[in-house]
Every structure is written in C-alpha cells, then in structure tokens.
C-alpha cells in the first residue's frame, strides 16, 4: 500500500514534466465603474487636453492625450468610443513640433537641443474636419475659460476652427454639448494666467476686456466657469473637474537659473568697472543676471533670487551677446517678483472657483496643482523616476510647458485615482512606462 502510493506520487510528479501543471495561474480581480455610466465621455479643456506637446499640436501627441488614456481605461469598465479631432497626417499644425537634435552654439559647442522637426507631411492639416465628429475630445490649444461663451470663437482660434461644426457662429460650449455626454472631464483655466506668464508678464492684469496674454479678471472667470459647468452638468452627467497647476514650477521657468552668469575674476572686475556707480557689483563665480526693469532709475538691475528666466531666452545671446551682463535681459524674458505674485494669486483664486463648482455639483475634484508639485521631488512609477526637470525629468515635453505621453499618462492616473475615490469605482490605472518619453537621437 505504502509502496503503491509512493510510486503513484512519483509518476504524477514526472508527468508534471510537461509543466503546464507547474505554472502558477494568477487572475486579477475584475475592475468596475461603480455607479458611473462612462458610455459617452467628453473631455473639455485647452492644449493639455488636446494632447499638445513639444511646442505644437501633432497627431502623435493627440493619440497620447490624457483624455485618450482615460477613455482606454474607461473602455475596460463600459466606456464607449472616443473620437478625437485628429490631424490628417503626421506633421504638426500649424508649425513643426520640436525634436531633440545636436545643435552648435555660438562658441562652437555641440550639444543636444530642441529644433523644429523636419516632418513636412502637413498638407491640409488646417482643413475643417467637423464631418468626422461629433468629437469626444474638444480640447483647444490656447482656449481660456473666459473664451468659452464667445460665439464665433472658431474664427479667432484656428485650433478650434479646424474641427468646430460652425466655427463662425457657435461658442466653444456648443461644441462641448454636441454629444450627450454621460461623463465630462473639465481642465480649463490654465490659459487665463499662462499666457501672461509665458510672455514674461507683458500683458495686463485683469483688464475689463482680457486678451490672450492678459490675466483674466476673477469675476469674469467665475461667471464663465460657473456657466460652463452649469450647462455641462445640468442633465445629470457626472464628471471630474481639474484645477490649474502653478505654472511657475514648470521647466519653462525653472531651467535657466537666475544666477547663470558665471564669471572669472577678470570678467567680474571688468563688469564692476563698467557698472561703477550703479551699486551693482559682480564676483568671481556665479552671479545673478542683469535684467531690464523700467522701474529702476537706470532701467536695469540685478535679478533677485526668486525671479525666473524664461526657457525661450535666446541661449546664444546669453552666451555670446552679453545678455544678462553687459546688456540687460529684456523684461519679456523674465518673470519678476510682482509678476510671479500675480500668477500665483490668480491661480489660487481660480482654483477656489473650480473647487466651489465641484462641491456645488458634487463632482470629483483633482488637485492637479498639488500633484504636479510632487513632480519637483519626483514621482516613482514602476522603477522609473519622473521629475520636473527639462528633458531629464521625462514628464515635460520639449516646450517645457506641456507633457510627454508619459507625463500625460501620469496625469490620467491621478485623475483616475480621484474618480475611483469620489465615485467608489475601481477603474484600472494605466502603465505609464508603456508610453513615449523624450526621444533621443
């Protein structure tokens, strides 16, 4: 008896040499949408929603937008088709996107830098494609919250004009309402302050009629934002509102350091002689740049430690043109203390409007501002560390403002986490590392 059992045991084990029997079988539990009907999802927003990246709108960026990522995850729990107003060919519209390539500086140094892509396969990219709609992603680069009730907006903004059904007569809100959405995401408001910031504070603060590049007045912002949210959710759709990131923390403003003027002792002495009597002094080593300042009696001053230099400042002018030392950096390349304070305080006020609306309509609220701040210290995802550094950080695209496909996937996961929490859903997150980052030659 004992003998037989053991023999059987051994034979059983040897049969297992086929090893199908030895492979563990793990099944993951099933995801769920909770109470949500995700069959018709519409994404409302600006360039971030459109998938804009690398300083332009191009098809690959659109295919990697965060709404696209959300729709793919929604599809696992009953989500429906997701139609984006895709550009008809690979080339960016209207100007080429940046790619990384070796560039030669004024001193002859060759290094990697962003240059316009040579992809010219863009014939017809501006043509209106409304017949392919209605679209689930109505994100329009450049659009502000205060533009959302403006009839004929499609004439003013070619990104809207290329896919709106009636560009010359309708409002952006009309386009968002073309589909009877069951679920909306709304990430609006960044451009109400971003344009001011990226132009170095050249625009006005809260003028009665704000143009792009100005900061939108708070009452107008509040009126338009509330109207949009009221219209989108009046029929019982559910959704998520996303607040505005503090743009002063993005690589566009943090890559060129305020003290990037590195001098030898001789150079410092030369500059001290040139600036004698102004109260401005230089030392060997790192110095703060000299910047233009209309408020100064001599029209210029040394930069303060907490002021920011824009990524668009011409590098060759800094290196070889005497900018920041013998000549001040023009004010439109600098965000000074007052301008930074304007940007921060309006971002805070707008976010209060967004939070109030989310509470009023019982919608999920994503504090993207706080989340993107955690990028400064780094977000570790499945062994890859993302941070807010230009190029190296992996999350921001080559324009220093918009995100890479991986960055947009991080954003999608953050939104999904908040949706899951708010609606007691169990929608799977996406694998961020699966998507594209910065591509190196």
């Amino acid at each position, binding site marked *: 008896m004992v003998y037989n059992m053991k023999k059987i045991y051994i034979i059983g*084990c040897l049969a297992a040499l086929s090893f199908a029997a030895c492979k563990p079988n793990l099944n993951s539990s099933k995801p769920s949408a909770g109470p949500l009907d995700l069959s018709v999802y519409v994404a409302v927003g600006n360039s971030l929603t459109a998938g804009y990246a690398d300083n332009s709108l191009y098809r690959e960026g659109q295919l990697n937008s965060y709404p696209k990522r959300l729709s793919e995850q929604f599809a696992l729990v009953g989500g429906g088709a997701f139609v984006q107003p895709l550009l008809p060919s690979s080339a960016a519209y209207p100007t080429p996107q940046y790619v990384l390539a070796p560039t030669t500086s004024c001193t002859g140094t060759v*290094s990697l830098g962003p240059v316009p892509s040579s992809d010219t396969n863009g014939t017809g990219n501006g043509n209106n494609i409304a017949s392919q709609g209605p679209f689930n992603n109505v994100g329009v680069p450049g659009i502000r919250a205060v533009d959302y009730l403006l009839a004929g907006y499609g004439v003013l903004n070619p990104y809207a004009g290329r896919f709106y059904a009636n560009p010359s007569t309708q409002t952006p809100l009309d386009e968002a309402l073309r589909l009877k959405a069951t679920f909306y995401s709304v990430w609006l408001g960044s451009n109400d302050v971003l344009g001011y910031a990226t132009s170095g504070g050249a625009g006005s603060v809260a003028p009665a009629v704000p143009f792009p590049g100005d900061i939108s007045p708070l009452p107008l912002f509040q009126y338009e934002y509330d109207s949009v949210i009221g219209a989108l959710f009046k029929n019982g759709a559910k959704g998520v509102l996303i607040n505005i990131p503090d743009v002063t923390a993005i690589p566009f403003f943090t890559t060129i350091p305020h003290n990037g003027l590195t001098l030898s002792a001789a150079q410092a002495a030369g500059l001290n002689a040139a600036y004698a009597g102004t109260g401005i002094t230089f030392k060997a080593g790192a110095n703060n740049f000299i910047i233009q300042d209309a408020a100064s009696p001599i029209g210029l001053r040394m930069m303060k430690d907490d002021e920011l230099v824009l990524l668009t400042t011409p590098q060759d002018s800094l290196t070889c043109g005497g900018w920041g030392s013998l000549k001040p950096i023009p004010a439109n390349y600098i965000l000074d203390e007052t301008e930074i304070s304007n940007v921060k305080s309006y971002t805070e006020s707008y976010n209060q409007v967004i939070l109030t609306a989310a509470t009023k309509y019982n919608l999920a609220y994503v504090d993207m501002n706080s989340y993107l701040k955690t990028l400064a210290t780094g977000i570790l995802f499945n*062994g890859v560390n993302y941070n807010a550094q230009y190029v190296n950080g992996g999350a921001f695209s080559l324009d220093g403002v918009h995100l890479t496909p991986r960055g947009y996937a991080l954003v999608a996961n953050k939104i999904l986490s908040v949706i*899951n929490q708010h609606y007691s859903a169990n*929608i*799977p997150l996406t694998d961020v*590392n699966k998507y*594209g980052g910065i591509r190196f030659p």
Partner: protein
Amino acid sequence: MRKLTLLAAPLLLSSALSFGAAYQLNLQGLRQLAMGGGGTAWPWDVSTLFYNPAGLSRLSGVEAYGSVQFIMPSTSYAQSPPAGYYTASTKMQTFPTVNFYLGGPLQKGSKWGLGIGLYTPYGDGLRWDNTWAGSNVIQNIDLRTIFIQPTVSYRINDFISAGIGFIYATGSVDLKQALPVQDQNGNNGQADLSGQGNGTGFNAGLQIKATDKLQFGITYRSKVNMRLNGGDAKFTVPSSLSGYFPNTSFNSSLPLPAVLSVGVGCRPIKNLVIQADVNFTQWNAFDSLNFDYAQTTAQLHNTHLPFRYKNTVTYRLGANYAISHKIALMVGGAWDPTPVQNGFVSPVLPDADRIVLTGGVTYKPLERLTILAAFEYVTSAKRDGNYDYSNFGGTYQTKAATPAIGLCYNF
C-alpha cells in the same frame, strides 16, 4: 531655446537596478532531497560532505557520486485594480545543476575520512518579457554558483565524529534591466551587468551516534562573500547619450549567508529511517547590494539597493523506507519561510513562504552501484507585495519543479 548643456540629475539608476537575492537551493544529495532536504544527522552517502562533513568518516567505504538536477521555476505576476489588471509570467527555463562527490574513510576501519565535493547551493533565474510592466525593475536575472569543498573528517569514537571542509566558491551573474531613455523609435535602452566572482568559506559539523537507532548532527556552513570584480557593465542607449552611459566595469559583492543546521534521525523499525532537520539561515547578511562602476557620469551613479533580508528558520521532515536490498523509497517535505520582508518584495526574487514536497527512489542493480532519482515540487503562497525602492507592486506566485537523477558507486 535652452540647449541641453547640462543634463543634471541621474535619469536612471535612481530607479532600481535590482539584483538577485541569493536563491537558496537544497539539491545537494538526491536521497536527502527526496526526504525534504534534510541530512544533518544521518550519513547517507558521500553527499554528506555537504549536509554534515562529520559523516564522511562513518561511510562504509570510498564512494563516487554524481547527479544532475533540472530546476524549472516559473513565477506569475498580477496587478490588482486599481493599479491595473495586468498579468505576466516568467518564461519557462530549465536550470541544470550538478553535484559531484568523491570520498570516504581512507581504508576500511580508518578513523579518518577524506573527500571532495562540488555542488550548487545558490542560484536564481527569472526571465521576464523585455517589455513587461516591471522591465525598469528587472528583465532577466541569472545567478549561478558552484562550491568546491575539500573535506576531512575524523571519527573520534563510535559515539562522535567531526568534519570540516574548506569552501571555494565561484559563480556568475547576469542581469538585465530596461533603461528609461528612449531612441527615435520609442524603444527603451538597456543595462546589462554580467560578471564572475569567487569567495571562500568553510563547512563544519559534528555527528553523534547515540544508539543504532538514534543519531544527531549539527552543521555550520559559513557565510561566503562572493566578490565580483571587473564585471562588464554594458549600456544600450541612443547614440547621443553614449557619453553618459559608457560601457564600463563594476565591482560588487554578493553575500551567500551562513546556515546552522541541527538534525535528528531515528530508526523505529529495521527498514525505516525518519529524520528531521532545522536550518537557521543568516539571511540578514543580505542587507543591500552595491554596484560600484569604474567610470561614473552625471547620469550613471554607483547603485545601492536595499534588500534587508531577515533570518529564517526552515523545518524539514523525511523518511526512507527500504523495501528490499535493492530498492528504497523516500518521501518528505519542508516549510521554508521567506527572508523577504514587506516593502522589499521585488520581481527580481518575488519570494514568499514556500512549501516543499519531495519524493524519490534508489535502486541497486549491482551490489556497488546505486541509481538515485528524486523529484521536488515547490509552491509558494500568493504574495501581495511591493518593492518600495522602485514603487512596483503586485501579487506574485512562484512554483518550481525539479526532477533529478544520479549515480553512486561504492568502491
């Protein structure tokens, strides 16, 4: 636009460049393997060189012993929502290991025994898909070791014997990890670290024959620190970054932990031996793993990975039943708890508490020749864990099947 004159912080290798934890194997003798992996108290054959060197002087004569084991591990991985409901499995691979022993009493009745053994006490091999979700943690790990152990044993009297062996260990490691730098086609880069190493240690034991029916043993196998000097670090990256990831060499060391074993064996009836072993493994020697590169850059820093293993106690139980002079059967099992603590569960070695079931048979076609066959099946509990260092988590389960066959000749 700002040009990339300064790539400041480490892109990579701030993420985990993980390396295999020592994967302990208990396959050094087939009779012992078939009895749950124990053999400290009973000198079954010349493979006692590994289990307890003291047993060598108690053998009836000089023996030559050779065996080959085919380890076939498989690990599955699943993410639970909301992390995703992705699943993955390692590719099926077979890792053959060999044992060879020669030795015994110098002559019949001698109190001295001499011998030499070659065996594989540690190894690890997992091959994930190159683009799987954890590829930035690990793609492939292959760790192999061989211990060579010349041994001397002395039978003090009929009651007690002692033995000690010197260990020379040699081994190789190869590990691959995706690097989060992408070329123009969106393909990730790869780091490939491979090297050879060696180390030394000892294996000592005492065996007590209380009566013909009751024996005890104690064995201490020291820690062996495998030093890997001058390993090859190869990086596949876009050409514009090759200056940041130079192909270079690295130094590292891998501690193979000390094990204290105590065992008891008894013969309640003539044809039956039952034995029990307890192993105390000093896994806390494996605290972290450090790679020091000969050339570092702004992007390539030395790597220090935390593992923080904890000590374990393993229980083994087995029986040998002689049906006749020619045939004996063995069966056994073991409870082998994991040294991996929560927060350190990585796909490099997704370890969990293991249950080991074993069986085997020996057959003597000739008076002096024994054919041995054994089979081991290892299964682990499903373990939900995270490797905090890489922020990578999920549920893992590992199973392994190991058939083995060997020959023993008694001179």
